[in-house]
């Protein structure tokens, strides 16, 4: 701690030497530190801290000195880690598993990923390197650039409490798109890799979660890149040795489940798989779902119990739903997040969308005669929250009204289904939904979305929060228009947001954590 104090003292000292008159050099005019990037440190879907990755010096032509500043969830500085490394590294993500932190670095020149694990004394424990070949490198970069994940979620590296970290890496082999799953131990230098059996299909994998013994991955695969038909598989991998425990199609009779989340509450030998379901050959990327499916599975991948909440039969008890599964005024529902809370209830947060004719697009095409503009647009409507009992019965459906947004696409998308357009909208962040934060022990959660409000009292952006705690749903709103020149809101520790306010006149940036009511 004293060493840290010493470091801060020297920073303070550098600040002190800022005084200076024109024409003369001061230390701070020469001293320069570049912030390369910053991000959140996630543990069990909760923000536990933030990292700030600085280039603090240039050692030689190929090497830089870096300072990795770690602050806790309350923005209190915890540690500065200094190291020298190649000038070509970037820091992608960080995760915390209760006893160590992993930082995932990407080296552009070496085409390699490095998982660097640090103990809670700030010292490096282990480092694991993974070399990507040329094709995988460009595929990995493409996936990274899409970056459709929420700021409160990791995309690449996930914590296994006290044991290590699991990473799912998108890869490309020849013309095939594939993946591998890696585990990096934090208590001893040990790693394993799971490589799927080559079956000629194009596969993408998403980590869903883990219980004490297995990691669960969803694999969506199809025969060809442009193929309309895709299938979902659930893969269970033994956390100890990386061996496959099960690999099952997410097919239950005529219902196909597209898992979005697993919940490991209760019996450690079982877990819940939650996601929208489709009947027959319908596809997640092209068609509207038929409802919400919940499976209780055991560690061998066997479905112990299943429940399907149908839009047509069940949701229609609460809201007016037509035969196509469209909710009145909302349209179709895109589900952003499904989660189970400590008390066993299941919640689904979704947002309405529908395709509508674009009057200005039609007019423009008629006027110009070029037909280069799309004649339909995607209309994003209200938020919807579903609540299911611990017995998986639909208990409530509630709409949270907001102003609609419209998104225009090119002429090509006039041919796509609204559901395919919604997938595109999600990838490009066109929905108003921001993120969901789970609280400590999953006892609470907060989902946030933005809206533009035009009323007599206020005109500007608003952040809305829907929170659950003590068995009750509450709402709150934060006006994002203030005396600051610009305001940005980021997810904070559970139940809080991080507000960044920039005051242009004073050249002042105010960063503060605020609680959601």
């Amino acid at each position: 701690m004293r060493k840290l104090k010493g470091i801060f003292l020297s920073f303070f000292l550098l600040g002190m030497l800022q005084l200076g008159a024109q024409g003369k050099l001061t230390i701070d005019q020469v001293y320069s530190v570049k912030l390369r990037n910053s991000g959140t440190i996630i543990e069990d879907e909760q923000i536990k801290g933030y990292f700030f990755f600085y280039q603090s010096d240039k050692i030689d032509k190929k090497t830089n000195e870096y300072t990795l500043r770690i602050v806790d969830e309350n923005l209190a500085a915890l540690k500065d880690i200094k190291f020298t490394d190649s000038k070509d590294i970037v820091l992608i993500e960080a995760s915390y598993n209760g006893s160590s932190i992993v930082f995932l670095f990407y080296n552009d020149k070496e085409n390699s990923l490095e998982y660097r694990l640090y103990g809670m004394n700030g010292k490096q424990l282990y480092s694991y390197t993974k070399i990507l070949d040329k094709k995988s490198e460009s595929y990995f970069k493409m996936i990274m650039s899409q970056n459709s994940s929420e700021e409160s979620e990791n995309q690449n590296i996930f914590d296994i409490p006290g044991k290590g970290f699991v990473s799912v890496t998108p890869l490309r082999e020849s013309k095939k798109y594939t993946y591998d799953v890696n585990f990096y131990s934090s208590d001893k230098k040990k790693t394993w890799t799971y490589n799927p059996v080559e079956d000629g299909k194009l596969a993408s994998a998403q980590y869903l979660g883990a219980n004490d013994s297995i990691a669960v991955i969803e694999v969506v695969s199809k025969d060809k890149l442009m193929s309309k038909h895709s299938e979902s598989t659930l893969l269970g991998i033994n956390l100890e040795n990386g061996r496959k425990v099960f690999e099952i199609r997410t097919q239950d009779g005529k219902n196909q489940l597209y898992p979005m989340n697993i919940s490991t509450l209760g019996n450690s030998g079982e877990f819940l798989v939650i996601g929208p379901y489709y009947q027959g050959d319908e596809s997640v990327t092209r068609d509207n779902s038929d409802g919400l499916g919940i499976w209780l599975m055991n560690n061998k991948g066997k479905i112990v119990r299943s429940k399907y909440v149908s839009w047509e039969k069940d949701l229609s008890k609460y809201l007016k739903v037509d035969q196509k599964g469209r909710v009145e005024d909302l349209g179709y529902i895109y589900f952003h997040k499904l989660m189970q809370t400590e008390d066993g209830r299941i919640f689904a947060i979704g947002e309405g969308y529908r395709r509508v004719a674009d009057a200005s697009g039609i007019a423009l095409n008629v006027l110009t005669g070029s037909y280069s503009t799309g004649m339909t647009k995607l209309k994003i409507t209200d938020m919807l929250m579903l609540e299911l009992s611990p017995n998986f019965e639909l208990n409530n459906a509630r709409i949270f009204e907001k102003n609609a947004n419209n998104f225009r696409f090119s002429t090509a998308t006039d041919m796509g289904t609204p559901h395919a357009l919604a997938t595109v909208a999600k990838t490009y962040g066109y929905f108003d939904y921001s993120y969901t934060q789970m609280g400590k022990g999953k006892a609470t959660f907060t989902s946030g979305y933005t809206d533009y409000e035009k009323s007599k009292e206020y005109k500007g952006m608003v952040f809305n929060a829907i929170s659950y705690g003590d068995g009750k749903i509450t709402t709150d709103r934060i006006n994002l228009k203030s005396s600051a020149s610009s305001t940005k809101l980021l997810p904070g520790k559970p139940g809080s947001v991080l507000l960044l306010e920039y005051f242009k006149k004073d050249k002042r940036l105010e960063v503060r954590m605020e609680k959601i009511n």
Partner: protein
Amino acid sequence: MTNCKSLLLFLSLFCLLLRLPAQQPGELPWLKPEPAKKQALLAAIESRYKKDVEELSGKHKKQLAEIFKERYEIVKTAIEGEETITDSRINAYLSSLVAEIFKANPSLPASEIRVLFSNDVVVNACSMGEGTILFNTGLFHRLKSESQAVFTICHELAHYLLDHGNNSIRSYVNTVYSDSFQKELKSIQQSEFKQNQQLISLAVNFTFRNRRHSRQHEAAADSMAVELMKNTGYNLQGALECLAILDSSAKMKYDSPLRLQERFNFSGQPFRKRWIDSDVMRFTSEDETAADSILADSLKTHPDCSTRIERLKPFIKARQQPGARDFKVSEATFKQLVQQFDYELLEHLFKKKEVSKCLFLTLQMLNTHPSDPYLHTMTGRCLNEIYRRQKAHELNRFVDLPADTYNAEYNQLLHLIQNLRLTEIAALSFYYLQQQEAGCAAYKPFGSVFEEAKKHFTN
């Protein structure tokens, strides 16, 4: 004889004026800011600043003027923001202590000196180097005798008389703007690699020198303070006692457990363990190496108080005078001010929007004064303010966020504030004040605070 008689009359009148009536803590004569005194102070510091700048000469005149301006702005802001106390009743007492020092040391430039109380919780006093000496109420309210207060003033006076502040500024400017330092900076700026490493090394060397001088300044000021004090008739042991108080400044005056689980447990709103739960990410402290220890010691501005005490002991022994006293001006006034500053600090923290600090000190004081209506009311005021600010999403402008660097008790309170939901804050304030209603009903401000808590609770 006549002269003597009138002097006695004057002294007894003066002492009467200084003797404050015994009061209940909740009925203190709160500080009265005096605009005329404030204007006079502002005029005095401005005139001194202008004079100091006019007298500047030499190669680095411009750079020195910049720093003098910054110093002037700091003092001006403290006076304008009413950090400094202008209440004439309180200043009269402080002036009488200063007068004792000047009376014993007639050659001192009394007209250049302004000793002021500063409403600041930090256990400290400082000499700004241009004649202003700020005596923090946070230090004064921990003292036990006038002799300790007089040592504090003498120590800061010594800094002024030895010109330590200005010498440090000149030394800084002469070093940083010297041809050799500038040449070194330019050479670092032009170097392609390891620029920052070279700069840190340069800065650390510079700081070592600077801090070494600073520690030497403290030792010199201690010695001179005893010299200034020795003819005042005050007990020189006050110097050692004062340093011992500074040595324990990390400990709060009313240091005691907050007992949050007992204090905020009501049948209508039982205390919930999750309110004080904390599972923040923590790093363990590293084993300190010998090099770290040397670095930390070399960067200290002040020598350790224990070292200062040992150094002063023989010096004081040689100068101790028989009949020296702990109190000369007024023991009663001293004690009343010590007590009043406990409360003034709370009021000041609340006004300065430092609500979590105010609540913390209030709860600690309640352990010593469990039936004080002011303290119960202040607890309610803080909780109501926390409710209002949280509702408006601006709470963290008014409270600190938890950090392990804080006192453990304070940190637990900060976790409580962070973990409470809006409705729970309203419930805590309401039930807390309801519990105190019988004992506080006669205290006028209690009613409106309780009314506000009721409104929040029933909302």
